[in-house]
């Protein structure tokens, strides 16, 4: 696979152009989040000392600085508060209409997520959406001159039929 204008990049993986996180354990201390995602679990880290449960997951508690953390589950269903269907200027890697929703997961947690498996005009405020986990292209890690593929998943939400 050649790269136009930059032939020296032929067959190489430019990770700085990768829109997804470098999830592999060799590059990421919260790789467990993605391992949990693979099991259809939406998780974050809870501080064993002060109990705080920030999202996204951390390696150090932002409240009390403890590094004694454990993985806990977050809700995988939520309610659509607002949503938007972007019809122009969608970045490469996504298709128009690119649908996003402000999702209320309860307990004061709201996040903006992509909504997949959903047609334009289908979503309504108040709808329930659930976690959707899907495969994304593997990242490439060079180990002693050998290119290894590290499988990856990512998440969005989708309408509950």
């Amino acid at each position: 696979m050649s790269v136009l204008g930059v032939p020296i990049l032929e067959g190489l993986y430019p990770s700085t152009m990768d829109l997804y996180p470098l999830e592999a354990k060799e590059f990421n201390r919260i790789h467990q989040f993605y391992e949990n995602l693979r099991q259809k679990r939406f998780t974050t880290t809870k501080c064993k000392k002060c109990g705080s449960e920030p999202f996204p997951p951390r390696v150090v508690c932002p409240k009390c600085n403890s590094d004694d953390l454990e993985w806990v589950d977050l809700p995988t269903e939520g309610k659509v508060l607002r949503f938007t269907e972007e019809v122009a200027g969608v970045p490469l890697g996504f298709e128009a209409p690119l649908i996003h929703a402000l999702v209320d997961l309860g307990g004061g947690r709201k996040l903006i997520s992509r909504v997949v498996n959903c047609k334009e005009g289908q979503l309504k405020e108040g709808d329930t959406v659930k976690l959707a986990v899907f495969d994304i292209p593997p990242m490439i890690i060079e180990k002693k001159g050998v290119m290894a593929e590290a499988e990856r998943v990512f998440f969005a939400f989708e309408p509950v039929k």
Partner: protein
Amino acid sequence: MPDRNVCIIGGGMSKWGVREASIVDMTQEAAKDCFDDVPALKKEDVDGLLFASSHCGRRSFQVNAAPVMAERIGIKPTSMCTRVDTLCAGGSSGIILATGLIKAGMADIVMIAGGEKLYTPQRWETYYSELASIDHDWDGAQGIGLPPPFFSMTAQEHMKRYGTTKEQLSAVSVKNRRNGATNPKGHFQKAVTMEEVMAARPIAPPLGLFDCTPVTDGCAAVLLTHEDKAKELSDRPLVYIRGTAQATLHSMSMNWPGEHLADWLHLRTAAKRAYERARVGPGDIDVAQTHDCFTISEIIEMEDLGFCKKGEGGHFVESGQSDFGGKVPVNTDGGLLSCGHPFGATGIRQAREMLHQLQGRAIKQVEGAKIGLTHNLSGLNVEHTILIYGREP
């Protein structure tokens, strides 16, 4: 310990738009325009450079850009030479930092330059690179890199909660494009009508083409120094930096600090501090340049900067209160909607316009303006930055 009053003494801009030029070219154009504005200043007397750019690292493949720019501009900084990156607020961050350095006696004459070359040879990379502008692993990977979806939801929230109308959103665009029509440096020199804005092609409804700032290449530069040096270098009225603030309360969408998307707590937090530091209130502001990346942004800014009550921003704009002759003219040079938004340059462009307004030499002058405010929101609305300028220290 020195505690010197700090003045802005000159400003310049490259032409902004879709430019057949590199970021290095445009930085030279902006610096030349700035030096031409202060003829008594010798280049060798500039002892500091702060270069505000985010995407030079990505789209121009140039990190550590400050020494490159210093060399091309033809200055040899001895107190400070560094790059500043807070995306849309980079220029304002540079001005705040330079103010601190000069106030403390650590620098004497500092140039703050900055800007972006956002258009890449293939257009996909222009948009794709935006995934680096926000919390990459969480919001970027959700495809929220380009901001219209986020501000579409913000607009819907404001409309549902306060009854704001699409006409009121459009009024922001009509005003700012009218103000920018006579600004030769901006991206557009063409006013638009209410009908054109209302009928424009949708981007992320309710936001249409004219509700969004365009993608723009460009650079800008200003010069700051202490009061004594400012008097020495220019006979123009002195313009002081009176108060500043920059507030960050979160980095990604899950941790939004307000009650809802149209409630900008971090803006109110920054405004409170900036007003206190400047010893003024919102009623004292004669002219303002606020961050109109989207029409809805300017409406919420009117509220959370304290120019009107919460929920009344749409009416405030529609009734002409943010236009010439109103309570506080806003975005007198066209703002982001008309000038465009090469991130690191925007705060510098606002500072230059404020310098012109307070010295009585703006293209569209607010008569007798003595106190002015500039504001940026940056990233996916994660940070708010405010500077207050005045004719008195």
